[in-house]
């Protein structure tokens, strides 16, 4: 059964992080954690992509999650990674629920550009508010887990494991959601909205729900990034950030809930290499890599795995 294999894969991945983590150097653990954070956002984008929607403003919820986590630390001294992620998710979900009523009406490029406008408005608001440090942003208190403050040398590992739980846990839930009638509606909506409506289902409702789920995932990712990077700034809501997430989502493809995380890892790797190998022309390297992926892996990273399996 496909389902069982996927759940097994997810479990294996979690085990791998827990067991293999200690063997990784800290910089690798950091990159891994960031990959989980970005992968969570991409996972949400994947949900929307299945319904034929692309959000150029997912950074909105990434940023909301991050500032919620950061604010929690500054206001109430909460630095627990899980609490921060839960708060970030809740806040993002709340905002998405409200905005969803508006956005669920939109399709195609207009859905994308309206979400972009919304995230740019948040960017403007934060830049404006000097209490939030404007573009300089704020530092986030060092992460703790269940009240324990890990020693400097293994805080990376602890956070990475927390990220793995959050990321792969979310992936599992999404995987199960895709099995529900609602989850199954997405491709039908992408294919033929009219038929869906004329079978008696509400397309708008379905999109609204998936939009909120996507935002929640982005919120978790943002909170995770905040506590990992240790710093938050409005750049997190800027359109270029959304662009990176879309890149990751396309890179990953919609083939599997595991793909977004691999996509994020690969993106991090490409990005890092570009910086190391050509500090003066990293944009060119990055752009070229992007092109090659789109041209040669149109179905996304996951198609590699699928092909290998069938071949």
């Amino acid at each position, binding site marked *: 059964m496909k389902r069982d294999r996927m759940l097994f894969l997810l479990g294996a991945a979690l085990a791998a992080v827990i067991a293999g983590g200690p063997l990784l150097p800290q910089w690798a653990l950091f990159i891994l954690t960031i990959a989980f954070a970005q992968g969570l956002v991409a996972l949400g984008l994947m949900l929307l992509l299945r319904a034929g929607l*692309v959000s150029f403003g997912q950074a909105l919820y990434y940023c909301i999650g991050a500032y919620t986590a950061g604010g929690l630390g500054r206001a109430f001294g909460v630095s627990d990674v899980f609490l921060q992620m839960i708060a970030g998710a809740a806040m993002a979900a709340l905002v998405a629920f409200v905005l969803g009523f*508006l956005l669920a*009406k*939109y399709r*195609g*490029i*207009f859905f*994308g*550009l*309206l979400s*972009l*406008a*919304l995230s*740019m*408005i948040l*960017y*403007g*608001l934060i*830049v*404006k508010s000097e209490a939030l440090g404007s573009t300089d942003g704020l530092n986030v208190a060092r992460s703790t887990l269940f009240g324990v403050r890990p020693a400097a040398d293994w805080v990376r590992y602890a956070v990475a494991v927390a990220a793995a739980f959050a990321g792969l846990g979310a992936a599992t839930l999404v995987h199960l959601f895709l099995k529900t009638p609602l989850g199954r509606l997405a491709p039908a909506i992408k294919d033929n909205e*009219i038929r869906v409506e004329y079978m008696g289902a509400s397309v708008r409702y379905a999109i609204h729900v998936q939009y909120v789920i996507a935002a929640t995932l982005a919120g978790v990712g943002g909170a995770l990034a905040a506590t990992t990077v240790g710093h938050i700034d409005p750049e997190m809501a800027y*359109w270029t950030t959304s*662009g990176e997430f*879309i*890149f990751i989502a*396309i890179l990953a493809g919609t083939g599997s809930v595991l793909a977004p995380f691999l996509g994020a890892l690969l993106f991090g790797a490409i990005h890092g290499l570009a910086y190391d190998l050509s500090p*003066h*022309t990293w*944009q*060119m390297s*990055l*752009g*070229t890599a*992007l*092109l090659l992926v*789109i041209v040669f892996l*149109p179905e996304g990273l996951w198609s590699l795995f699928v092909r290998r399996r069938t071949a």
Partner: protein
Amino acid sequence: MDQIGPVVVDGIIYSAWLFIAAVGLTLIYGVMKIVNVTHGSFYALGAYAGASAAGAWLARGYPPMLSYAVLLLAAVLVTLVFAPLIERGLLRFMYAKDEVVILLITYALFLILEDTIKLIWGVDPYFVAQPYALLGSFEIGGLRYPTYNLILVGLALVSGGGLAWILRGTRVGKLLLTVIHDPEMSRAMGVNVGRFYLVTFTFGSMLAAIAGSFTAPTVSVVPGLGVDVIVLSFAVVVIGGLGSVPGAALGAVIVGLARSVSVHYMPQVELFVIYSVMAVVLAFRPRGLFSLVEPRRI
């Protein structure tokens, strides 16, 4: 003191600039259904080409009045080098792909072009201040404005009117409209759709380059110049209705005036006035102001 005069003039000047910068984007989308991120790159290319060419022209002591022609020529030439290369070399193989995927492709191209520009012109800024001051200035509401700004307004009117005339008045324009309406059918009817795409892409990009080269005398041409133009033009074009030239004009005027009003009366909101306008317009007119009505699908 009365600010109305300046508010309007500032608004119009900014609108004109916005329109030239944005109209190419709406044209390309209207015809090819491509949201073209490289638009910003062409703006930058135009700025660099214009600045360096006009700079060299003036440095050699050639007649300064002709520097405007040089600006124009530089923009045209640089586009003729890059646009066909991109369209023929890459984009035309991608038209089958999803709108968003093509957008990502142009985003990748944009990144590549950013560094290409850096490799050609380096990171040091380029200036051609002379053309800006050359034409003297006029006064409104006791404030002095360089006459050069009127050139921008003129350019906007010419390019807007020109486009409208080509699309409505000429045979090519009519053919183009059929291509827009149904590329497959037109192809079947023996229209060379490929050439139309090439011309449209080149022409649209050229407008961006011209906007860049004529902005060059008023700014210092530095790396990253094109980035903000992208999102700004998107905002304008979306407000007006993607693919509609009059829409782009209306969008530019709205945004331009909104910005100048906010600058004069409440500077603190300037930062997000544009996106707020965009969000509000989309909230009430989901497909922009001059949107073509959605076709019935049953």
